[in-house]
């Protein structure tokens, strides 16, 4: 079964899976925080679109609700919240430079290959066409972790964390047609609450060490002074 045998909607889901992987890579290379949040919002939009497509193809109407919820939370609400935080903390001009961008990108590509290798046995035992995308969703999770490792700014860590959640959600959609509604609602509100709590934490960190660079957290203030 190759891609030419699928219908256009199914091809579109796979295309969106590819684009979601691309947004993860874009986030990895983006050094400005405002743009990072924008790319994250784009990933939320693409994810919602892919979910809505899956709902249409598989005829699972409850997936429309999770698509709408995802669009509202990850596409609009959380990016807006993060955007406002960046503005109020005066971080919109701060560059969070990566030391070796090419190396990080190649590491990301390696993670993509690794997740394909890991998910190959699962894919080979199922007739489900969307399962091709499970490697991509696993890669989105791993790339989110890589984003958290390579960055210094706390805001970038939160974006990485949220994109890990995006990857898990995508994995649920493509492998089991979404989680039960109650679980999904719970996770959505958890993520929203987490975003609000992170905001409070940002202000706490900023007040105590005068910066959101997490490298400064490991220094003892009395020794440095």
């Amino acid at each position, binding site marked *: *079964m*190759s*891609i*030419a045998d699928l219908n*256009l909607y199914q*091809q*579109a889901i*796979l*295309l969106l*899976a*590819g*684009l979601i*992987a*691309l947004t993860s*890579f874009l986030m990895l*290379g983006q050094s400005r925080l405002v743009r990072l949040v924008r790319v994250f919002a784009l990933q939320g939009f693409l994810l919602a679109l892919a979910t809505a497509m899956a709902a249409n193809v598989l005829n699972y109407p409850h997936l429309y609700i999770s698509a709408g919820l995802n669009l509202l939370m990850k596409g609009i609400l959380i990016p807006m919240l993060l955007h406002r935080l960046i503005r109020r903390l005066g971080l919109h001009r701060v560059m969070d430079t990566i030391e070796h*961008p*090419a190396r990080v*990108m190649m590491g990301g*590509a390696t993670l*993509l*290959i690794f997740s*394909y290798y890991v998910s190959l046995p699962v*894919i*080979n*035992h*199922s*007739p489900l066409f969307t399962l*091709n*995308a499970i*490697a*991509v969703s696993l890669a989105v999770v791993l790339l989110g972790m890589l984003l958290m490792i390579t960055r210094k700014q706390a805001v970038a860590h939160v974006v990485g964390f949220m994109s890990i959640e995006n990857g898990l959600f995508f994995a649920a959609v493509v492998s089991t047609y979404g989680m039960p509604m109650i679980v999904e609602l719970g996770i959505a509100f958890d993520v929203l609450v987490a975003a609000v709590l992170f905001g409070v934490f940002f202000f706490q960190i900023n007040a105590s060490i005068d910066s959101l660079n997490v490298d400064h957290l490991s220094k003892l203030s009395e020794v440095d002074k």
Partner: protein
Amino acid sequence: MSWLLAFLETLLFIAAAPLLAGWIKRVKCRLQNRKSPSVFQPYRNLLKLYDKQPILPHPASWIFPAAPYIVFASTVLSAAIVPLVAVNLPTAHIADMIVLVGFFALSRTFLVLAGMDIGTAFGGMGASREMTISSLAEPSMLMAVFTLAMTAHTTNLSEAINYVHDTGLVLRPSYVFALGGLMMVTVAETGRVPVDNPATHLELTMIHEAMILEYSGRWLALIEWASQIKLMLYGVLIANIFFPWGIAQDFSPASLGLGIVMIAIKLAILAVILALSEVVLAKMRIFRVQEYLSFAYLLSVLGMLSHIILEAARVYR
């Protein structure tokens, strides 16, 4: 008969290249709210240059006068390989995409040698920049080409275009990535705006112009014409590989006519996209070009990976 057609197609290719350059200039002028020169102005420029006597700089060796002919000949040969109006022509079966990349490398090598041959500071600077950019652009172009070759199971351009044409509209993630990568490479390799500015003679920013600064007369005409053909080559590659609909698959006059009209429309649209991007974007610093090209490489690699991960045939047990 088919050889004659192949010959005519190549002639059409090199005759139409200045027209495409004139069209891009016209669109760009309109977008910048300027009065544009006629679309036939590049022809007049070439004719004027051809009438003038070329001047050989004092320290030049045999490479300097030979380079324009080698550059032009290898560009015309690569134009013969790329299907413009019709596929299945005999010239397209002689060589494949890797040979095409090789022809590009040959013409670039001689241009760079000629730039260094006369020993001016600008020539050497332009040559080193050109080599840096092309050594970074070539891998991503090859990766995009290999992505295509993996889906079509051939590196022959004509057969690959046939394959894409016959499978009809398939939304392949790998083609979207390869298209993006190839477009970025096109901009870098033909010296258009974010990487190099074809209209400038400002010393510190030019790349292509710096190498050919000492050329004059018909040698300059040949080099300018070759670079116009090269721009059109990339345009035709993008148009015919990713949107092959309308290309002539037999040699009847009706389908050949349709092929000419379709490729003209496709190139005109691509030229508008190129002019738009040139108006919107500012030229990059030279040290940011490697970031740009590594992004192009990333796109091409993602294209290949998404072909393997998302599209390839799988057997389930």
